[in-house]
């Protein structure tokens, strides 16, 4: 699995069902981060040359480079805008949430 996906964790009914000490399996996500976003990046695949600079500099790692085109995981993109700023080909533009 390249990127973890959100899972449901139900509050255990019995004390013995809690993990031993404050700990849990790594990579277990229960929430998304999209609520933190005001602006949303959109990649124009016509302009994108797959230099992968946006993939490199995203602090949240939301850009997936495995496919033919780059894909942003909008569940976890915070709209910081670094990808758009750093793209030397102006292939990424930031749009206010709700306007697209």
């Amino acid at each position, binding site marked *: 699995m390249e990127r973890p996906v959100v899972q449901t964790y139900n509050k255990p009914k019995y004390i013995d069902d809690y993990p*031993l000490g404050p700990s849990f399996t790594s990579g277990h996500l229960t929430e998304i981060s999209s609520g933190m976003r005001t602006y949303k990046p959109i990649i124009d695949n016509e302009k994108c040359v797959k230099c992968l600079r946006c993939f490199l500099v995203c602090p949240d790692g939301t850009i997936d480079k495995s496919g033919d085109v780059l894909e942003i995981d909008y569940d976890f993109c915070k709209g910081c805008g670094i990808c758009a700023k750093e793209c030397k080909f102006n292939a990424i533009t930031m749009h206010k949430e709700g306007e697209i």
Partner: protein
Amino acid sequence: MSNKIFASGDEALALGVRLARPQVIAAYPITPQTITVERLADYVEDGSLKSEYMYVESEHSAMAACLGASTIGARTFTATSSQGLLYMCECLHYASGSRFPIVMMNANRSTATPWNIYGDQRDSLSQLDTGWIQLYVENGQEALDTVIQAYRIAENPEIMTPVMVNLDGFVLTHTYELVDLPKQSLVDKYIPFKDYPNKMDLDNPMSTCITAGPAWNMEFKYQQHCAIMNSALAIKEADKEFEALFGRSYGGLVENYHCDDADAVIVTLGSVAGTTRIVVDDLRAKGYKVGLLKLRCLRPFPKEELTKILKNVNVVGVLEKDISFGYEGAVFTEVNSALSKLDKMPKTYNFIAGLGGRNISKEDIKGAFEKIIAYSDSKEIVNNVEFVKLGCE
């Protein structure tokens, strides 16, 4: 054929640790624990102990290094005393909250100020709330045996709680007696290595020692509390199983010495119990019905044992080497709280003695018995917290 060695308390404890085969040792030297860490270094040097011996830069780092080693599933050992114990205090809460089975020797020593390297119990008794199982030993043999029992208790998968083994500074750490050395093969059988259920695993990664907010925190703390409460049974069983293999036991949580028909009992802990035992014998020979209740385990507190043993006693004196400033001795508070559950609670009296290493003699203890016997007959309301053998008004 017995295998006896003439050793100091520190050395006896080191011998016990060697038998327990900790995989990581991280300790910072502090009087009067130093001989223990020195001997362990000797054992690593001569090959009789295979352990990663770490030279840490402080006690806080010593406990932190043990935390680190525990997270990856290694058996650990550390040792400290007074200032060192207080310096690592944050890490004590950390270890118990994270459920790591660390075993630590604490050489009971007075805490500054004033500076004093001699033994009293203010260091460990001020840390009763940190979530560690706390055991107090009476002599070198008990130190050696208890540190081995400590691993059995700590690493029990139902318990997974760190254990502090306390021995009186200088009075025990630096005095010599003949101790019997258990056989390595039997110790290995008694405390085999097993995987810690909460360890980090390279093939199944885990996040540990993490945050838990208001929605989750109480459950983790409740879990921790249940485990240490359940450890009372584990401690008794470990002692019984030790007796089956090695022929010695220490009563589990407490030792009842002539309390069953006693009118007056002194409750105490550590090496003082040994002196008290002799005074009880002397007074019994003279016809006094007195007894000793030795507290071996302070956490979990042996509430049930105390109420059962002391319910028909007229008066109980608690003799301890500490004071909780602004109130009374910490052990006295705990004993009173336990005994208050009884329909007819014995009268109780607190003796604060031995602070800063002041000697507690047989005469002092005899005087304590006489005091509480007189007190039990008296109708006066008296201040029942007394500093023993104070040199001033």
